């Protein structure tokens, strides 16, 4: 049971995309999100889509997993598409449906916005599909590094993230245990009105919180006993390094930006 508890949606297919430095991935995705808004012609969208789809293919992540990642936003994508179709009233009428005129401009606008949405979600979900949560944590710590100068607790933030990641499965197992224990005492979590079920959650949450606090206290003591004294003077086992494929990615991305601006109308 416990081996199925995989945090996040990481798919270990070990591809070029997986082996990229997580910092590169995060930075590139950030810039990708920015440049998506510069696209305004069919060609420029084509160039952007080529990059996203190309990365997805290179990542070797099965299509079904990518689709699963898109599932919660499909509704939003379709909704924005129809919103544009019905709201935009510019240009020539394309066709009429049930006496409602649909304009060309609306079709184009709706298509463009939906495509933008789709590309953004695709690229960002590729990050979580090909990068372990702990790699993302490391990358964030590195990328936020300069903020240490203004006394922003970067190391502490990263440590908090990694400890939460480590304790998610532990607390999930505990929740299961407590809910079974409470069920055996007659707490009913499945039936009854919404209000009743909310009430039934209380005997679940209280012991969970108590134990989480106890764990935190013991963990803090264990960390201190092992010589933890904050981020200063600390070395790191995990090392991030920029490799050949990272450089390749940068080059491809620069070319993408150039291509995008050449194909803009």
């Amino acid at each position, binding site marked *: 049971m416990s081996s199925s508890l995989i945090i996040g949606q990481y798919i270990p297919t070990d591809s070029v995309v997986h082996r990229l430095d997580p910092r590169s991935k995060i930075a590139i995705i950030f810039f990708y999100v920015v440049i998506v808004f510069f696209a305004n012609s069919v060609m420029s969208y084509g160039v952007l889509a080529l990059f996203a789809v190309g990365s997805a293919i290179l990542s070797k992540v099965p299509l079904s997993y990518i689709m699963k990642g898109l599932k919660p936003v499909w509704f939003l994508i379709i909704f924005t598409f129809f919103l544009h179709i019905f709201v935009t009233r510019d240009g020539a009428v394309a066709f009429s449906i049930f006496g409602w005129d649909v304009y060309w401009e609306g079709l184009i606008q709706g298509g463009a916005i939906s495509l933008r949405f789709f590309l953004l979600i695709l690229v960002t979900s590729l990050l979580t599909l090909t990068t372990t949560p702990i790699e993302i944590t490391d990358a964030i710590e590195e990328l936020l590094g300069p903020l240490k100068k203004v006394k922003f607790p970067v190391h502490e933030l990263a440590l908090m993230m990694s400890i939460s990641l*480590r304790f998610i499965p532990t607390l999930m197992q505990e929740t299961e245990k407590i809910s079974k224990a409470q069920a055996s005492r007659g707490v009913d979590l499945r039936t009854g009105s919404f209000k009743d079920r909310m009430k039934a959650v209380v005997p679940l949450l209280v012991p969970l919180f108590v134990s989480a606090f106890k764990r935190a206290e013991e963990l803090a003591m264990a960390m201190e006993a092992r010589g933890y004294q904050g981020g200063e003077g600390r070395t790191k*086992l995990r090392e991030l390094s920029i490799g050949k494929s990272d450089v390749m990615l940068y080059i491809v991305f620069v070319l993408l930006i150039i291509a995008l601006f050449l194909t803009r109308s």
Partner: protein
Amino acid sequence: MGERQVEFRNVSFRYQEDMPWVLKDVSFTIGPDEWVAIIGHNGSGKSTIAKLMNGLLFPQEGEILVDGIRVNQETVWDVRKQVGMVFQNPDNQFVGTTVRDDVAFGMENHGMPRELMVKRIEESLSAVGMQEYKIHEPHRLSGGQKQRVAIASILAVSPEFIILDEATAMLDPKGRKEIMQTIHGVQKERDLSLITITHDLHEVTQASRVIVMNQGEVWMQGTPREVFSRKEHVIEIGLDTPFISKLADHLKAEGVSLAREPLNHQELLEELWTLRSTM
């Protein structure tokens, strides 16, 4: 560097001003390569001793010397490098997201260079027989395995003293056996002293010295044989004695005269079959 030992000099401790003393004028010394078991009731102050040795708490009176250095706010980080500690709950001392990261945690804290860490991770994980689990997450390990990782992560820093604060209390018999075997192996191979704080009488009989605590004071000290041959003394403060020891008592009451106090099945067996031997 002074001599390799932990020394308690007239140590008294209480958690708060208006609370009763948890430790009262405790003095003892633990030398190199010793295995000392500390036993006693809940609230007898045994866990407090462990925390004082590691500088997690500081005494109000008396002093604690680790390698001749007085434990205080300034020296505490050096002391923690020499005194490693394994706690009771396997889950609540696992900091890293994988075995490898957890073993590295202590070394990272002490600012060791990366190459050394990689080498030490290998060494210490193979010392506890966990080298194949390097990239396992904690929730995929059993309690005994987690405790073995905890021991490995202490070994990686190569301390002189390891304190096991009821490290086997939350484990099943199998896990308990695993840990005891690991500890045996480690102590033979490496140059270190062990301090086990325990309720498990079987663990106690394996130690080279036993310190019995009662109400914050050292009640008795000696080899396990010495301690359990003065059973009345141990029972007086409500502690149990090993099964074999009890059995030996009953045998004595029945008129079987045993030459020495047996500590395990083997010893009792030896005693019995040589009983009528005149050689």
